[in-house]
């Protein structure tokens, strides 16, 4: 089932894509601005979606804007910043109910598309810059977001491992940039970054939902086609990863109860077919509750609470992460490597391979049952230069052979080991 994915060209660097599925009760419309990740510009770009979501010329007051969204059945406006390989993706999305399930039958698609265009293309500008107050607020919020990466130790540890693997390459840059550059953001620099994005970024307009995309297309295409973008050039494929050389290692102490071990692996030079084999291999290695890492590191040896592997298609790397006690780190690391070696030696049954394919089928099917899943799937497709439906890739995975899995596993080599080590006791107090 291809879900009627259609991609239409507005210009060389602006496209409108839509996926219509009447089973949903909502619609989700997104503007994605895609640019190359750079340490200097990541922070100032990242502040833009959050300044935009505070208001626009047609609705400059944040409270009035939110009342308008509230009346549209709690439609949600999101400003988001993510990354894919060496690209930074700045997203402004709006999601709301479809007209057929509203109480009063409002024309939701047209209302939401029009508001989204106003937000992205017609912001409040004062003397050639974003408003001082809005910029100051969102600069501080950005700094807090960057500093709060430490709150989720699992995510924090994975980002650290990525830094170890990629060193100074764009792939190591965090999507929100760093505090130093965030502190330097001014109303003018943020506005200039915004103008630069509208002029030069690749723009992907996405519609997913049960409504008629025609209204969204009409509104979005007319407004975005009018942008002046003489310099905009298509973004290339990700730069290849730095050549593997040795194993980068880092241990960082922190006041936590549970340590985090993250191991980053290079996957070598691979073609498209080999990447399907790597995805399957990673799932069999540590992607399901019947995977080798789950059954051995967690269940059999009780070395950790979780131990999982994930293949990062954009970067063509594999990350294994685990929550362990410090004294079990060496044993867990050795077992993680031993299980990889087992796959490299072909020590897995045909049933294990078949079961992994079955588990992945559920994942492919689940993608098509959620709006966020569909949007994320096709955005990733667009970023990697494809338009494959989940069913197409499911068939590709199904065709991967045992020999291809072994060959893929043999290309996997350890590149970095990051260890967030527990250190000391928590302080707890209560006051009355």
């Amino acid at each position, binding site marked *: 089932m291809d879900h009627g994915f259609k991609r239409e060209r507005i210009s060389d660097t602006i496209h409108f894509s839509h996926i219509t599925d009447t089973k949903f009760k909502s619609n989700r419309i997104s503007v994605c601005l895609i640019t190359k990740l750079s340490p200097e510009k990541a922070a100032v770009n990242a502040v833009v979606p959050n300044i935009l979501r505070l208001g626009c010329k047609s609705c400059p007051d944040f409270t009035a804007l939110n009342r308008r969204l509230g009346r549209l*059945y709690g439609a949600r406006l999101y400003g988001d910043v993510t990354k894919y390989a060496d690209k930074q993706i700045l997203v402004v999305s709006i999601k709301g109910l479809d007209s057929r399930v509203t109480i009063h039958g409002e024309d939701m698609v047209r209302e939401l598309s029009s508001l989204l265009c106003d937000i992205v293309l017609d912001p409040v500008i004062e003397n050639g810059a974003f408003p001082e107050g809005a910029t100051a607020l969102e600069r501080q919020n950005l700094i807090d977001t960057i500093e709060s990466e430490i709150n989720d130790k699992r995510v924090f540890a994975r980002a650290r491992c990525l830094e170890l693997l990629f060193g100074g390459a764009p792939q190591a840059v965090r999507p929100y940039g760093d505090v130093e550059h965030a502190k330097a953001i001014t109303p003018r620099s943020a506005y200039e970054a915004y103008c630069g994005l509208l002029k030069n970024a690749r723009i992907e307009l996405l519609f997913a939902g049960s409504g008629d995309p025609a209204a969204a297309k009409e509104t979005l295409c007319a407004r975005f086609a009018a942008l002046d973008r003489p310099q905009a050039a298509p973004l290339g494929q990700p730069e290849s990863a730095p050549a593997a050389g040795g194993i980068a290692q880092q241990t960082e102490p922190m006041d936590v109860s*549970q340590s985090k071990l993250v191991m980053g692996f290079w996957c070598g030079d691979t073609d498209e077919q080999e990447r399907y084999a790597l995805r399957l291999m990673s799932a069999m290695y540590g992607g399901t509750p019947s995977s080798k890492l789950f059954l051995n590191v967690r269940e059999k040896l009780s070395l950790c609470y979780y131990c999982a592997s994930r293949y990062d298609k954009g970067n063509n790397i594999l990350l294994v992460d685990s929550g362990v006690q410090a004294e079990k780190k060496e044993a867990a690391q050795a077992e993680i490597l031993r299980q990889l070696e087992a796959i490299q030696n072909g020590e897995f049954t045909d049933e294990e391979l078949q079961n992994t394919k079955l588990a992945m089928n559920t994942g492919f099917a689940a993608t098509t049952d959620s709006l966020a899943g569909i949007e994320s799937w096709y955005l990733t497709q667009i970023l990697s230069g494809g338009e494959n439906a989940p069913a197409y890739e499911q068939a590709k995975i199904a065709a991967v052979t045992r020999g291809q899995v072994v060959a893929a596993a043999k290309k996997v080599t350890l590149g970095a080991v990051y260890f967030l080590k527990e250190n000391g006791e928590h302080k707890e107090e209560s006051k009355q």
Partner: protein
Amino acid sequence: MKETIRSQRLHESYVEVRHKSGLRMLLCPMEGYSTTYAMFGTPYGSVDVCFKTDKDPDFVTVPEGIAHFLEHKLFENEDCDAFERYAKTGASANAFTSFDRTCYLFECSENFEASLEILLDFVTHPYFTEQTVQKEQGIIGQEIKMYEDDPDWRVMFNLLCALYHVNPVRIDIAGTTGSIAQISAELLYRCYNTFYNPSNMVLAVAGNFTVDSVLAVADRVLQCAEPVQIEYKRADEPREVYKKEWEQSLSVAVPMFSVGFKADPGPYEENIRGSILDEMLIEIIAGEASPLYRQLYDQSLINQTFYGEAMAGRDYLCNMFSGESRDPRAVQKALYGEIARLQHEGLDPEMFEVAKATVYGRYVGALDKSEGVAGLMVSGAFNGVGMFEVIDIAAGATIEALQQRLAGSFDIARSAISIINPLQ
């Protein structure tokens, strides 16, 4: 017994069946969906630490965290564990324990009947030994440690510890390393035999399946059992809060806070109906469209992490506002000020309409996913408010009803704050 429950508003329906085993089944085939989501649950959660059946002479008090421990152990039987069985069908399986329920679930795109058979079979066939209990104590000990580092989790439980003196809602769902060390196979069986009787459980299925396929599997797997009546012993919880403040230090960048309001619980169903209206009051007090949100945001006292939540269960009811702030006490003071103003001046009709549409949209939007549908059906079975009824309650809310709830649901005299400070 087979009955079709319809929503006039949404033009949708689901089927309710009482199986001969006593199991209540709520089945919602959803056209166009590729996956099927099944949830098999019992109204037994972390708060149920003192109970008896109609056949037991006395109440038993069990160690904290035992419902969650039982959830883990049920996946294992004498020959193999449930995950190994699911591996052959491709289903993605999981389970969770919350305050007042334990649910076992799977999502699949093929082999639905085989996966459902595994679900119904392993949950109805316990196997606990002292050896397997001991092994699980290590794994759950690691899970407990992981949550000790999670500031979102800690800020909420510290708030519940401040609001409640003895109500077990203040207990961490997984218990403590000390409490789970007291769990034995014998105690697990006692809990199991009390709460896992089919007549007290519910099976909800949503997505790509047929009603007949579920009935066929249920007929094949489920045994008839004599119904069990459960008596839960309620804690004698004082009306007042236990502490006004609870602070802890963890490695966070910006202080985190949660301000909570303790309300008087009524019967379960009434708590749920009330909490839907409380969600609207939360939007009016400090939702993104409220004047207070704007004021706090403009003063950099809150950021996008700020949110409000209504929490209702069998014998607890509270509302909370949480987020990050450099000055949590200033946020608390501002919330108190706005609540007092609304109590004194009355609710703004425009804000009421905004809040009502927002909450209505939230519940209808949840029906987009089979997971949301199954979850709402299970909740409805346990708390007496059906999936479509929730939406009708939201659509039928009145400003008068909200105004009436405001004093009891947001009582400043019965509130507390929990703060997670950054480590020095």
